[in-house]
């Protein structure tokens, strides 16, 4: 289980990016984090990735504090960030240099096949389209079988069709693992629909300082959510929550940050 305990992050210039974040994510859960720009959602992800350190509180994975980047926490960024001088195969193998050649080759081959890039092992990144490059980045993150996979607006630079394709693809890769071994996915996105399609739970954040506005369980069957008859209503409700989170606080209103009980987001009719 991944836990954020009263996590704060104050930047060197005094700006409080995150203030008292409490969040618990179960193993194998998919959590979407949405919020306006500057609400600290990417900072939150960087803290979990170990790329940045909280100025207050702690990030713990299975009871042990996350003190820096670790191989069991994978990251997919908004851009593919492939090394342009390495072939797709070598890019996917980037984090596997501690393994023997045979083992590494087998893992990489499997990862490339899972993301549908088996024929592109020897291609260079410049020869791939944006969607293919992002799939290669996904393969690079997944090949080491991380327990936690962090995704920072991973599909936002892609066009709508490819984005939907990759969302399904991500779910497919996630679901292809046996139930107990699925990675925990934490997805930062500004796309409400993406959060709803992928997540078990959506965390809405509000900014300045970054706090948890509320958490909402997505009570829709996982398969084919987008075409579920309740989907528009659920999306509308989440949108309202996001609007509420983006409104400046009334004077005297206390923060609702730290709400940990998820309210269902299913329509009430």
């Amino acid at each position, binding site marked *: 289980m991944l836990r954020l305990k009263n996590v704060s992050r104050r930047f060197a210039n005094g700006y409080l990016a995150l203030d008292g974040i409490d969040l618990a994510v179960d193993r194998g859960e998919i959590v979407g984090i949405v919020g306006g720009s500057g609400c600290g959602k990417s900072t939150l992800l960087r803290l979990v*990735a170990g*790329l940045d350190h909280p100025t207050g509180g702690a990030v713990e994975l299975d009871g042990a504090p996350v003190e*820096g*980047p*670790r*191989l069991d926490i*994978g*990251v997919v*960024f908004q*851009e593919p*960030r492939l*090394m*342009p*001088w*390495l072939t797709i195969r070598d890019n996917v193998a*980037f*984090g596997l*240099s501690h393994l023997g050649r045979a083992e590494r080759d087998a893992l990489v081959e499997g990862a490339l*096949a*899972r*993301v*549908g*890039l*088996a*024929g*592109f092992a*020897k*291609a*260079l*990144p*410049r*020869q*791939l*389209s944006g969607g*293919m490059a992002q*799939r290669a980045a996904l393969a690079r993150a997944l090949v080491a079988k991380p327990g936690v996979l962090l995704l920072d607006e991973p599909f936002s630079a892609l066009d709508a069709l490819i984005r939907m*394709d990759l969302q*399904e*693809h991500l*779910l*497919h890769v996630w*679901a*292809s693992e046996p139930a107990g071994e699925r990675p925990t996915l934490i997805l930062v996105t500004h796309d409400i629909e993406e959060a709803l399609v992928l997540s078990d739970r959506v965390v809405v954040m509000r900014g300045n300082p970054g706090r948890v506005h509320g958490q909402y369980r997505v009570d829709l069957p*996982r*398969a*084919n*959510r987008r075409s579920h008859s309740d989907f528009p209503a659920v999306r509308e409700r989440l949108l309202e929550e996001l609007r509420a989170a983006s409104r400046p606080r009334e004077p005297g209103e206390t923060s609702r940050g730290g709400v940990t009980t998820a309210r269902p987001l299913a329509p009430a009719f």
Partner: protein
Amino acid sequence: MTTWDRAAQTGGKSTQATPAAVHPPPRGGRVGRSLAGLGMGLLLPALLLAGWEAGAALSVIDTRLLPPPSRVLGTIAELAASGDLTLHAAATLWRVAVGFGLGVLAATLLGALTGYSEGAKRLLDPTLQALRNIPSIAWVPLFILWFGIFETSKVMLIAVGVFFPVYLNLASAIRDVDRKLVEVGRVYNLSHFQMVRRILLPAALPAYVVGLRGGLGLGWMFVVAAEIMGASEGLGYLLVDGQMTGRTHVILAAIVLFALFGKATDLILAGVGQRLVSWQDGFKSAR
């Protein structure tokens, strides 16, 4: 149909795309075009040489001061026949090779260090930048006193000349490496050494090759300076010897040989560099 089935299908569909579809062989007339370009570029020198030769034959030009191309080529042939060419060329090439190697080695170590570490940059870079402002030839008297009049001082002078372009290019290229790629290295928990070797050096390679070529050019410049200062063999010695004995054809032969060797070594370096950075996706980069 469940979501997973559909996802599997989309995955399957993209597997069927072949690599050939994304990178068609980008050849066609490349050799022909470069030959045509070469022909255009050769036109002017050929005309000049022909004019020069004709001028000498018609006694318009004083051949003692400016011997015709045929005489210069003849001198090179004589040097080759007597074995002197091998002796002098080998001496010069050896000095350039060793000086270049030492300069590149030092520049690569220091450039990687100051490019990567802010502390090392603050400590070392100001000193190196200050030293760079000293014209390298000014070191000659000091180097002769320090390292003697033989090979060491010559090789050191060349190494100093080679050092700066390589160092400057590498250090600034490393500082300019995309922060996003460096972050990938951090995600994978690379050590400082691994970060330099696996991300920073490869990413800086294109600029490094430019630095190497610049450094080699200066290496050839400084070998001339070093050999003029005092040498008993080498192409630079031929220059001095030709001046002392008033044989302008020997001087010109040495100049032509310098040009040939300089160009040849640069071509080799450029060719190797081109292969190393062929992954680049730039405007007019190798495709």
